[in-house]
């Protein structure tokens, strides 16, 4: 039998069959691998949180154990700063709102550190990260940033350890009322206690990090106010 492979009907049927076969194949692969992928994504998130409390470069098979040891407790806070849950880890960055705030309380050495997730926008796409504050809720103990698609060699340098380490020891809030976040990323460092030098040539990414820090840290004001040791 000789098919006319140039006829309209044949072409349409052929295209449909091809697409359906491929769709089933890809759906199968995606389902089959989903669990393993999710495990990797979770481990990646754990290692980012660990990086924010200064524990970097942990082997991937050690990440879960190290995380479980370092994180004393997870809290979900509402806008008033009250704890409404304890499964902070399962909250995805997209789901963070003023009324749904994850907080990780961690222990490194003798220090208790409070890790806040950060989400914001850079020049080309999303930014996210974690920042840890010491138990005075004032001093930054560490930070970790990631990005979706910032310019390689410029904005993408926010992932570098050198940049992230500049945040260590900076002051996050203006006073013990926690009403104003003073931690900044600026081109001109005027107050070295709270300002971090921006990345040259990456003004918009640096501004994105600045705004992300301001927005996300400010949301925890009520909790900090209630729990600070006077």
């Amino acid at each position, binding site marked *: 039998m000789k098919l006319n492979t*140039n006829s309209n009907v044949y*072409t349409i049927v*052929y295209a449909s069959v091809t*697409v359906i076969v491929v769709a089933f194949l890809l759906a199968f*692969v995606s389902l089959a*691998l989903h669990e393993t*992928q999710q495990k990797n994504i979770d481990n990646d998130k754990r290692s980012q949180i660990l990086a924010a409390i200064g524990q970097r470069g942990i082997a*991937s098979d050690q990440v879960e154990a190290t995380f479980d040891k370092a994180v004393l407790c997870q809290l979900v806070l509402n806008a008033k700063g009250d704890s409404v849950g304890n499964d902070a880890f399962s909250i995805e960055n997209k789901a963070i709102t003023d009324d749904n705030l994850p907080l990780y309380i961690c222990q490194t050495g003798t220090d208790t550190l409070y890790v806040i997730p950060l989400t914001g926008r850079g020049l080309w796409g999303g930014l996210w990260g974690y920042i840890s504050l010491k138990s005075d809720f004032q001093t930054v103990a560490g930070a970790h940033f990631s990005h979706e698609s910032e310019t390689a*060699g410029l904005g993408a340098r926010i992932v570098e350890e050198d940049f992230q380490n500049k945040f260590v020891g900076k002051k996050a809030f203006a006073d013990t009322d926690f009403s104003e976040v003073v931690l900044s990323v600026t081109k001109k460092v005027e107050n070295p206690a709270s300002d971090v030098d921006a990345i040259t040539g990456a003004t918009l990414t640096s501004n994105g990090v600045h705004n992300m820090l301001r927005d996300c840290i400010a949301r925890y004001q009520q909790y900090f106010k209630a729990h600070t040791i006077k």
Partner: protein
Amino acid sequence: MSKLFSKEQKEVFAGPLTLTTPVVAQVLGICAALAVTSQLKPAIVMGLSVTVITAFSNVIISLIRNTIPNRIRIIVQLVVVAALVTIVSEILKAYAYDVSTQLSVYVGLIITNCILMGRLEAFAMMNGPWESFLDGVGNGLGYAWILVVVGFVRELLGSGSLLGFEIVPSDWAFFHNDMMTMPAMHLSSWAASSGRIAPSTR
């Protein structure tokens, strides 16, 4: 064995490894080749991924070449390549997560790699599955070995390491120069800020 590899088939396989290497001689797939070679490991994974995809897409297209309607043949080729790339990308995400984040968009961009469409259109549409397989593996490996050589040099001279293991002590400055691993657009500002060239010549 002589039936398995005729003289022409050996040529089909060995040609792209030597005289008609996709990257160097045909100047195909350059963008991804430069982007993923700052370290050796992503270069190897990228090379292998491309090899697997060229080989299998060549075989699949060659098997169905007589049934493909001529008017939509490029689309059918694209669907086959895109499906294979998606599968490879999903597998990397599941079993080599750190490499897949390093390669980021470049795995997905294998779809638009000219080597693939070039081989499908020029070879697989006109030859049997076995020849097409050899042609795919040959072209993939021809691409891969250039990537591996470039990745080797860039990681050794740029970071003083190979596959992440430190080869050269970190106080030997020449082997830790960022020139090798840095994207080109950043070079001028780096050179100016570190005093290599006067800022006015930027």
